């Protein structure tokens, strides 16, 4: 089946009225959760997952994916107008976006964010289309040692890129691995650390943990601060960027796209990291780095493009290897499994309709977002004007219902609240939760791959270094872990922008 034939099949599926409707609902909800501070794509997808049980698998995946990349579009609006990032990937957009708004250039800032997102999102989808099938072919050659090494590399990259001391990030990853061990040991059939709680025999659910660490803890931190939020009152005009704006931004958009796409592909990378890296790169290549933070359009165009391109890239390890690159992908993995699909190298061969349908829907979704976002900015601003003291009980309620309705279990709600408290303490003591989440997701797969590899090699751990692909992946991990011994590398990491890595 050639590429164009595959795309044709994809468009035939994505253009079906039902699928178009779910794509539209997905991007609309995504934009809304992107706009609302405190409710990110992870919480929104978790919350809406049970509602997809009655629709076809392809419609479900189209809608859930739409929420993810839709949130990246919506996040920029709050960053620019309120100086509060709607979701973590738009943190860096505040720096120049809000300054542009204060200078009366909210329109071009919002416009270039939307156009940059569209260009990057579209190129990201094209990259996904081109790279995923050959990678899936290659992944068929992967055995347990290669999978193990790849997951170790993903965890190492995330800990390397996390802000703060590396020991904290590694500690978080180790704790995440432990949490991933709770429940049934899939190889032996025995249960671990369940304390006779039936709900724990299937393991600690990712959704309650993520909602607790990112949703509940965020609300706890927000309520103890002043809840006054001032929206910069300005007439938003000239949403279409001028030729000069385009001239200033186009290179930043393209660089952001490339950075976002490739960081999105890496397990452990993702939208948040790519937006920070893109900002750092723009500052570095600029002739006037001192102007960054004062309202330069490249500071909006680059990161906003990067976080959208990353969403396309993040689908590659999920669809080709069955490995989620971040928490959102992990929930999508769960959603696909609930719908009877097994993401991995065989997906593109066994279910080409679903694979290509989902991918082409992202292209359509990007068009919808562009059409949707610019005219609806006024509506999003109105939603932002809802005072936080009224908004936060609703956010909490969504989280509570979301955690409960997954398995109709009060234990999962309790787990979410406990992790809300833990997440609050993590933030107070400056521990990043992202490595924990990735390790929790990868934990069971990593354990299976490790134990199978050791069984294969009769207990010889050198199996990870004697197989070429595995050896390369392991060497990259060793290199990253050994950074404290290499002074110039340590210096480079120290200059890495500080920010929460949580997608």
């Amino acid at each position: 089946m050639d590429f164009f034939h595959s795309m044709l099949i994809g468009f035939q599926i994505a253009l079906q009225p039902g699928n178009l409707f779910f794509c539209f609902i997905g991007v609309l909800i995504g934009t809304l959760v992107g706009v609302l501070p405190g409710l990110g794509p992870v919480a929104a997808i978790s919350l809406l997952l049970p509602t997809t049980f009655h629709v076809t698998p392809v419609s479900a995946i189209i809608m859930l994916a739409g929420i993810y990349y839709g949130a990246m579009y919506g996040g920029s609006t709050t960053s620019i107008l309120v100086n509060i990032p709607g979701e973590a990937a738009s943190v860096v957009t505040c720096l120049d976006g809000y300054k542009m708004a204060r200078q009366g250039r909210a329109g071009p800032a919002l416009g270039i964010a939307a156009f940059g997102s569209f260009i990057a999102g579209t190129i990201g989808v094209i990259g996904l289309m081109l790279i995923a099938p050959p990678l899936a072919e290659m992944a068929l050659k992967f055995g347990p040692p290669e999978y193990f090494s790849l997951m170790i590399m993903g965890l190492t990259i995330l800990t390397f890129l996390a802000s703060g001391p590396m020991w904290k990030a590694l500690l978080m990853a180790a704790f995440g691995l432990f949490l991933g061990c709770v429940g049934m040991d899939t190889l032996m059939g025995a249960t671990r650390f369940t304390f006779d709680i039936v709900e724990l025999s299937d393991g600690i659910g990712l959704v309650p943990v993520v909602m607790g660490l990112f949703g509940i803890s965020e609300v706890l931190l927000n309520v103890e601060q002043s809840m006054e939020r001032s929206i910069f009152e300005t007439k938003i005009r000239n949403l279409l960027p001028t030729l000069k704006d385009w001239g200033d931004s186009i290179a930043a958009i393209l660089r952001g796209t490339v950075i976002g796409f490739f960081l999105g592909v890496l397990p452990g990378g993702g939208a948040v990291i790519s937006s920070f890296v893109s900002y750092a790169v723009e500052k570095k290549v600029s002739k006037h780095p001192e102007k960054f933070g004062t309202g330069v359009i490249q500071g909006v165009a680059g990161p906003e493009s990067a976080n959208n391109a990353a969403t396309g890239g993040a689908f590659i390890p999920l669809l080709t290897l069955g490995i989620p690159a971040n928490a959102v992908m992990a929930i999508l993995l769960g959603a696909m499994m609930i719908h009877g699909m097994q993401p991995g190298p065989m997906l593109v061969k066994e279910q080409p309709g679903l694979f290509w349908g989902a991918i082409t829907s992202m292209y359509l979704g990007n068009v919808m977002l562009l059409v949707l976002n610019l005219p609806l900015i006024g509506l999003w601003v109105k939603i932002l004007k809802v005072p936080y003291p009224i908004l936060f009980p609703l956010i909490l309620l969504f989280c509570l219902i979301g955690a409960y309705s997954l398995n109709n279990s009060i234990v999962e709600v309790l787990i979410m609240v406990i992790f809300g408290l833990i997440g609050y303490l993590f933030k107070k003591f400056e521990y990043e939760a992202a490595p924990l989440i990735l390790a929790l997701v990868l934990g069971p797969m990593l354990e299976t791959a490790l134990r199978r590899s050791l069984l294969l090699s009769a207990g010889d751990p050198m199996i990870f270094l004697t197989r070429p692909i595995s050896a390369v992946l392991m060497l990259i991990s060793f290199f990253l872990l050994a950074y404290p011994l290499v002074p110039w590398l340590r210096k480079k990491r120290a200059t890495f922008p500080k920010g929460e890595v949580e997608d």
Partner: protein
Amino acid sequence: MSGINNDQVSAAVWFIVGLVISIASVPYGLGTLDSPQTGFLPFLAGMAITLFSFIGLVHSTLKQKKGVGWKPTMQGLVWKKSLIVLVTLFAYVLLLKPLGFFLCTALFIGFLLRAVQPQRWPVVVVGAIGTAIGAYGIFEVWLKAQLPKGPWGF
């Protein structure tokens, strides 16, 4: 030399957590390298936590010697508000089954609207009842989620 710092405290807690996990993994059976058992990976994870927290302890102690002391985590913040929210969340978990979704949700929303940053009573009452009706309508009636019912059937 400054007083004890935040990282020293958190690393010490993690050190204990790591040891507890490692010790608790042993009864599940560690096995051997050629036949790892159920407790193998949790044990490794626990040991890794212990190791990294030890590195953290050393790192933060060196920083303490350079004058890095305790950084207040609650300065300028109204921590009572987050405590109220947290307690309310635990109360919701406890009361959801006995009271049922509708009543529990109305009380939850009403209490938070009034207790954290007090809203006027009409806003509290309308907000609480309206949200409970809306959420019940969307999730129970429309999306057929099976939310807990109290003794009165809703």
